[in-house]
């Protein structure tokens, strides 16, 4: 394959429409007769609903209808489903609107539908709800204490599941014979995703055809269609079309099936008008699924030589008030399985308790379980290195899985297919000029300046697969991907991908693959996604799966196209099929490149079928469903260099080096952008962000005034580099790069700050590392 496009840092084809305001987002859409929904949300974290009075709202001019949870349930609407089940897991119902009780601030109790959005919002304030407030609990550990208020009758102790992985006895034994052990207690704080486009949904019911159309901010429109149709609303799947047009960021928060799209799809038939809802930012804070929220106790054991003997991890994972679509998978199979990191660890044991609390549900957020795992592993590595008095880079190097041991079976289920961890570490050390930096650190300390160097040698598992395995682990879906490639008579190509782009640049990256494979100009390729009406069933985009799984599905279809085209070309060239070569968009007989048929000529003949191989079907299109053989395993080393002001506690990031190995890179510009964004979010968690609930489970950090997202001036200029270890089991050799930054950055920054604070004897401070916390820790250390 000639690579005119693959590997080229092309500017994204979709960007001109985005940056000139010509994108089409759900909120941009309008239909004749459109009416608007506003949600009435609970101000209480836990309360019994005694009565809901609709009258005043209904009397408000412009109001069309007011519905409650009871109205929906009475008409047959079912609970929102959970797409990942663990053995023995408690699965209390989650209705789109609360029926008898509210269980978190922001839970919907009624919907007001009105002529315009302002009327709907005004009238929502007129709905009178009588509540009987009940005691509430927001903290995962407190929810497990005896006497804590129960979120659901089905789980009186608030335990949703207890899950474990690894060999407990073998691990305990390793700790018994250890030369040295360390233990850390870590809080991986709750984060609130903030996609720049708030969630939105618009639904229309056509009584003539009995068909529904839902436009929704979804990362996976087919999953939305399947769950809404078959599980919640009872609409035949072929009578519901889900369209997810341009979507402004998701980070996982737009994977899930939420109450709001369910409500508008149900309500459009009730009122006989199309209905739209768009979240206000305030609503996003309490209703978008949150991320992380772990409390962990982790231990590491080493022998006399400093080689790791075992790891023991105990985690309380706060799931919120209800199980969001993939909630149970995140703190289990996407967390416990990653605890081996890049290291040879003979035995690991991890147990996780999933807990209900009176908070917004928690689910996948960029990295989803893997940043939490990396934080545990990389904090342990640093704490142990310091305990042993070893250099943190050398301690890691000593414990890396060596390149000749792949495929490597970890003690926590995953089998890594490839890796060269030392390669990435060496490159990162070289870029940062490690030795000089350590000397500089020493000298600066003498002057009262505290700089720190932090490592994060991470592993990621992308493109979760294969379907048979994930099914055996509790997934209620397969995790393959689809692609339909349609060649038109003029040789132009439309590709329908089951993955979905909401910032990842598929329209460019996928077109690069197609243009190269078919030897046609990239302008001749169109990438279509996000419409169940035109795209074959697909699983969508999350978990950095689009390139390895979605891209591979496209390649399979392109191979089928080329095979058929070769047959047609052989007929036109009056040659044997096996003698025909396809190169740079031309078919010719081996050794006679001057006599050729272009791809476009062959495409035309496929549709004319005038001069055509006997027995061959006309037309030129192919579809494929690609089920990967394994996850892909990107890895890398990130190094943060920070300067901590001991008088104010303020952290400044001086440098940030990222060396990632995501296999072959389709478009370096897009890949680099993904790494930048990921690091920014990881730094956000390390230094700034955190959801704060008060003792009554009221969310205090519920706006951008109180929730600190990173801004440009919080971030350094990133130094990005790559090593390339191709994925051995997919046709492109690609692995996935969308989450590496968030997975690595948090640990790198925290390790750097703790390294800076070593002279004060400070070992650990929980995130976010705000100036106040650091200042207090320094003050206490100085007093001691």
């Amino acid at each position, binding site marked *: 394959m000639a690579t005119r496009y693959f590997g080229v840092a092309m500017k994204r084809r979709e960007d001109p429409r985005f940056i000139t305001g010509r994108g089409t987002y759900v909120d941009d859409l309008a239909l004749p007769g459109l009416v608007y929904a506003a949600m009435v949300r609970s101000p209480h974290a836990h309360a019994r609903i005694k009565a809901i009075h609709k009258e005043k709202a209904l009397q408000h001019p412009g109001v069309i209808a007011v519905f409650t949870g009871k109205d929906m349930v009475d008409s047959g609407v079912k609970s929102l489903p959970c797409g990942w089940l663990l053995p023995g897991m408690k699965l209390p119902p989650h209705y789109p609107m609360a029926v008898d009780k509210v269980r978190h601030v922001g839970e919907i109790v009624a919907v007001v539908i009105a002529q315009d959005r302002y009327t709907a919002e005004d009238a929502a304030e007129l709905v009178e709800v009588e*509540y009987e*407030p009940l005691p509430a609990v927001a903290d995962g550990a407190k929810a497990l204490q005896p006497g804590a208020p129960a979120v659901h009758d089905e789980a009186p102790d608030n335990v949703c599941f207890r899950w474990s992985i690894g060999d407990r006895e073998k691990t305990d034994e390793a700790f018994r014979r250890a030369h040295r052990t360390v233990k850390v207690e870590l809080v991986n704080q709750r984060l609130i995703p903030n996609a720049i486009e708030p969630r939105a949904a618009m639904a229309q019911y056509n009584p003539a055809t009995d068909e529904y159309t839902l436009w929704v901010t979804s990362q996976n429109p087919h999953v939305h269609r399947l769950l809404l149709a078959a599980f919640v609303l009872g609409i035949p799947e072929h009578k519901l079309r889900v369209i997810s047009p341009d979507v402004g960021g998701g980070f996982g928060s737009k994977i899930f099936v939420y109450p709001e799209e369910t409500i508008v799809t149900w309500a459009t038939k009730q009122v006989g008008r199309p209905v739209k809802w768009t979240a206000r930012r*305030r609503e996003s804070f309490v209703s978008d699924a949150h991320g992380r929220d772990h409390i962990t106790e982790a231990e590491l054991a080493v022998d006399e030589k400093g080689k790791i003997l075992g790891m023991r991890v105990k985690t309380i994972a706060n799931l919120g008030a209800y199980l969001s679509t993939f909630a149970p998978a995140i703190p289990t199979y996407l967390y416990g399985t990653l605890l081996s990191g890049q290291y040879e660890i003979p035995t690991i044991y991890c147990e996780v308790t999933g807990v209900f609390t009176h908070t917004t549900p928690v689910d996948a957020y960029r990295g989803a379980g893997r940043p939490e795992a990396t934080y545990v592993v990389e904090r342990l590595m640093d704490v142990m290195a310091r305990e042993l008095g070893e250099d943190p880079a050398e301690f890691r190097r000593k414990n890396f899985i060596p390149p000749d041991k792949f495929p490597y079976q970890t003690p926590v289920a995953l089998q890594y297919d490839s890796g060269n961890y030392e390669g990435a570490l060496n490159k990162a050390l070289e870029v940062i000029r490690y030795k000089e930096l350590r000397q500089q650190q020493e000298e600066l300390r003498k002057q009262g300046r505290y700089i720190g160097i932090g490592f994060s040698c991470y592993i990621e598992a992308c493109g979760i697969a294969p379907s048979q395995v994930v099914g055996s682990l509790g997934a209620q879906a397969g995790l393959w991907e689809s692609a339909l490639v349609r060649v038109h008579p003029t040789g132009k190509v439309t590709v329908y991908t089951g993955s979905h782009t909401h910032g990842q640049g598929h329209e460019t990256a996928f077109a690069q693959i197609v243009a190269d494979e078919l030897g046609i100009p990239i302008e001749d390729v169109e990438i279509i996604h996000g419409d169940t009406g035109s795209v074959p069933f697909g699983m969508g985009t999350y978990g950095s799966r689009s390139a390895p799984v979605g891209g591979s599905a496209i390649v399979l279809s392109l191979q089928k196209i080329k095979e058929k085209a070769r047959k047609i070309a052989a007929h036109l060239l009056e040659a044997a099929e096996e003698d025909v070569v396809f190169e740079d968009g031309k078919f010719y007989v081996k050794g006679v490149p001057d006599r050729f048929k272009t791809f476009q000529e062959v495409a035309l003949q496929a549709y004319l079928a005038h001069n055509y191989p006997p027995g061959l079907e006309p037309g030129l299109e192919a579809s494929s469903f690609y089920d990967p053989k394994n996850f892909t395993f990107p890895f890398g080393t990130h190094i943060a260099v920070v300067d901590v002001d001991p008088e104010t506690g303020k952290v400044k990031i001086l440098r940030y080096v990222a060396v990632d190995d995501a296999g072959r890179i389709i478009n370096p510009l897009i890949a680099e952008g993904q790494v930048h964004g990921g690091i920014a979010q990881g730094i956000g968690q390390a230094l700034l962000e955190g959801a704060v609930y008060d003792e009554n489970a009221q969310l*205090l950090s519920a*706006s951008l005034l109180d929730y600190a997202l990173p801004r440009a001036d919080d971030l350094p200029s990133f130094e990005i580099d790559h090593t390339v270890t191709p994925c051995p089991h997919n046709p492109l050799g690609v692995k996935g790069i969308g989450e590496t930054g968030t997975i690595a950055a948090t640990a790198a920054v925290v390790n750097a700050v703790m390294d800076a604070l070593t002279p004060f004897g400070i070992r650990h401070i929980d995130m976010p590392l705000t100036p106040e916390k650091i200042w207090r820790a320094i003050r206490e250390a100085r007093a001691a």
Partner: protein
Amino acid sequence: MRLKGSYRFQTTIDRVWGALMNPQVIARLLPGVERLEPIGNDVYEAEMRLGIGPISGRYKARITLSEIDPPNHYRIRIQAQGPQGTVDARGTIDLTADNGETVMHYEGEATVTGLLMSMGARLLEPTAQMLVNQGLKNLEAQLTSS
């Protein structure tokens, strides 16, 4: 949210007590009260306009007095509900005579929910304290001028 403080009125305990038991005086003392009517023994219904910055709205409140021990002590509970959240406040008021003057100790705790809490948490306590101080000053001015 907690409120606690004391105030010295330069007037007798009976005058202060009399004022504190008068619904119309209470209406002026509590922040944002637009209407206050007795609906039972020591139970009042009020309409209040509460606001912190951009978060303001009209609240329906029920005010209940209990443990009335003239002229020294009573307990007050204010339950308010509005579009932006709810307030459930409980407090005590204690009066002590001191040389013809009166010392008031007040103490209370409020549970606040909704937008009022999520957006206004940092401003709630200082705002409430300011309003209480203002109300008490107004009350004193009224008591000493008449």
